[in-house]
């Protein structure tokens, strides 16, 4: 086999990385290059520098260090039994690519992941070396996300946290049974322990040290994870239960849901179909309800027959239709918590309502001016001059709303 060019390696190792959903570059510490005279900054909000036709943002150079792998996870294109072409970047090549791309403003930084070769420590060691070189030799101030290999040593995790903004460990599948079946060499127990280890380290480093009174740097962008949706038969309720557990237990910044995508050279143990993108979207919406709208996980699907999110309508609307007794809500009187539960009212609109109604009583038209559409929310609110009457409890309400929202739908 002749040596591959950087072009060929990039083609193989970015193709191999595209099944990771996360491309976030936000939520880290603020940092710029004014003092260091180097290159790079992070200013809280991440920037999407491009978009692929799959609608996904391209913020980071998302590549694998190598796609050689000793694991044989059936959903993964890089599993050891796959016939995919293999390649391996050197540390130099990754550092140079990152800097060349960053200088031209193509990217916010690097998301480096890797297949596991030889041993977890050896692979993780090389990834940490890339991050170290970028930070120290190149004075790189951009975003670095390292996918952590669960089995690697504590020292390497410490170093990774020193240079990276975010660390992540993928739980892969929503249940341990799923992991055992589809990723037989992976140990869910080890994945949990690694996440616990990261949370403890982050909490420990958040305390000022006794000697210098300064906080040591350790992955200021926190940790995240990814779950594949649709590769096994776990219900949405089960998936959300796992997410709630992960948020609570390991203080994750984000759980990413990745609709299982058929891969070239697929394993026969997997569904051969287009990825369930709408389901993925509804899961993200439900995830938002838990994190920003005050919903507890069991509430979201309580009373549903099959534990699955309704694909035709958003999860908050579906919840409201099942819990009509809590409506209508008076937008001129209700507290923030109650307003957040009204379908169609987002956190920003709720903030505007709370501010505006201090000065004037709001009518339906006023509401129409601050939010996108009132079609969804009319049956659920009382406003000045508006009461839904029997509409809230009407039998065909769901279908009626679905019809009136169809034109507004993103899908």
């Amino acid at each position: 086999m002749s040596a591959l060019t950087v072009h060929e390696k990039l083609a193989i190792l970015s193709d191999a990385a595209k099944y990771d959903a996360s491309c976030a570059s936000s939520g880290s510490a603020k940092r710029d290059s004014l003092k260091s005279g180097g290159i790079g900054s992070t200013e809280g909000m991440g920037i999407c520098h491009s978009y692929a036709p799959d609608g996904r943002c391209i913020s980071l150079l998302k590549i694998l260090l190598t796609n050689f792998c000793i694991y044989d996870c059936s959903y993964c294109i890089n599993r050891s039994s796959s016939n995919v072409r293999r390649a391996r970047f050197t540390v130099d090549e990754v550092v140079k690519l990152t800097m060349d791309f960053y200088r031209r403003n193509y990217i916010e930084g690097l998301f480096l992941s890797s297949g596991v070769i030889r041993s977890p420590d050896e692979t993780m060691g090389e990834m940490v070396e890339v991050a170290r070189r970028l930070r120290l030799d190149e004075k790189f101030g951009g975003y670095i996300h390292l996918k952590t290999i669960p089995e690697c040593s504590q020292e390497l995790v410490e170093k990774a946290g020193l240079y990276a903004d975010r660390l992540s460990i993928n739980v892969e599948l929503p249940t341990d049974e799923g992991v055992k079946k589809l990723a037989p060499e992976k140990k869910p127990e080890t994945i949990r322990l690694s996440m616990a280890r990261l949370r403890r380290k982050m909490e420990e480093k958040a305390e000022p040290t006794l000697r210098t009174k300064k906080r040591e740097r350790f992955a200021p962008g926190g940790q995240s994870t990814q779950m594949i949706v649709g590769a096994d038969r776990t219900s949405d309720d089960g998936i959300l239960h796992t997410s709630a557990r992960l948020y609570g237990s390991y203080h994750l910044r984000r759980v990413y849901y990745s609709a299982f995508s058929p891969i070239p050279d697929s394993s026969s143990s997997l569904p051969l179909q287009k990825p369930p993108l709408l389901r993925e979207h509804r899961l993200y919406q439900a995830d938002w309800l838990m994190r920003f709208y005050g919903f507890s996980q069991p509430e979201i699907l309580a009373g549903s027959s099959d534990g699955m999110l309704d694909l035709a309508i958003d999860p908050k609307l579906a919840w409201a239709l099942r819990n009509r007794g809590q409506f209508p809500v008076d937008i001129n009187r209700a507290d923030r918590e109650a307003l957040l539960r009204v379908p169609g009212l987002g956190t920003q609109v709720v903030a505007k309502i709370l501010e505006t109604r201090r000065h004037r009583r709001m009518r339906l038209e006023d509401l129409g001016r601050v939010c996108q559409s009132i079609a969804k929310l009319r049956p659920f609110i009382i406003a000045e001059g508006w009461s839904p009457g029997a509409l809230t409890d009407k039998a065909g309400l769901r279908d009626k709303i679905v019809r009136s929202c169809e034109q507004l739908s993103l899908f």
Partner: protein
Amino acid sequence: MQPAGFDLARYNVRLDSETDFPGWRDAARRLALNEVSPEDISWHVAADSDQPPSDLPAVPGGKQLVVPREFIGHAETAFCHSDPTRFAFLYRLLWRLRTEPRLLAIASDPDTRRLEAMEKAVRRDSHKMRAFVRFRKIGDGDEERYVAWFEPDHFIVERNADFFVRRFTGMRWTILTPHASADWNGERLAIGPGAARSDAPAQDDTESLWRTYFENIFNPARLKVKAMQKEMPKKYWRNLPEASLIPDLIAGADKAATAMIARMPTTPAPHHAKVQAKHWPTREPAVMGDGAHTISELREAAKGCRRCPLWRDATQTVFGEGPDDARVVFVGEQPGDQEDLAGKPFVGPAGKVFDAILDDAGVDRQKVYVTNAVKHFKFEPRGKRRIHSKPNAGEVQACRWWIDRELALIMPDLAVALGATAALSLLGKAIPVTKMRGQVIEREDGLRVFVTIHPSFILRIHEPADKDAERERFLHDMRQVKRLMTA
């Protein structure tokens, strides 16, 4: 009120440039303080106006213009909008604010909404500039420079330049746009006149690598063209080196995805068998708890415990800790948040209280064995917290299997039940702990069980005096335990 003899004709205000906010601010202040109503003013930018500017009235002595503090910030942002009527619009807002100071808080007012929309457009354009500027490198070594051509919708180069300075401090760069240019020589930022596309370099070799990346990071099975175009509208495409790939990627996507699905699974790669044999030799069967002869073997076996469903949500089994030949075994309820993460019993807040009181009582924690009635953390997630839930009788019963073996291997003289769950586990029945506190109950197998509360009970008391009293009582209990140990 107009000063006597002042001409009521229209005022022509001339601004130095599209981004001359100080000029607008000064003129607006003078005019508003002289009660000049919006319809009497006409605003122009120097470059595109031959209208002679009017002399603006002076600020009347002692008068001050009072507007909400946040208005200036909003106005400054909206001022960058390309809408030619923005000067007049912002003056009208200023005019209204004098009598309606809360106007900006009324989100449903049409003027407030328009201001918000203009600001949003400017912020979005600034953000897109940060995203879609593409530098091309020219020269090498000391001559190395990075030059970009960009076409913003609004007048945002000035307000955005600092961002590029903060980010690309260590390189020399120039951003050219039709309206203005920004240049950083490594030390100083200079804002210059507009330029033409042909002033920027025509190519850069690294772009072909970037295009390779763009092509390969795209997943054809997830085509969502609308979502892409919403965030990356076509108007930006002509200055993005990767954008020319998009039509072909879209056209080929369905075929690529169908081909991917249609392709039958192939036989495993040739090296697969070797990798499997080398890295994943068949595992030896797990140690069963039954065959454990020491506490450490038992601990190992408990790692995979599935006797009740609590393992599902917990991080790990938190087994007992202490010497194999301890004279006394303390039994708590279950691990908490910290114990679940650390894998050790009594290391959280309640554990710290427990340690301190044991110390005060003169009991050496190194010499005692501490464990829990239930060995997995039972909780309900609430955002980023885990709320402790009490284990039920079934879970306590299931976990007794482990406690029994721990006690059988250690053979202590005394077991201390910390709280009701521990008492239930050790005695096999529920007892009123507060009533029976301090008592020693002898089990059928001869093991003496000392009953007291769980140290977390002390933590839950808010009243400091009550808390101290409870701590004192618990210390008294621990002293009694120490006496029983030596007895």
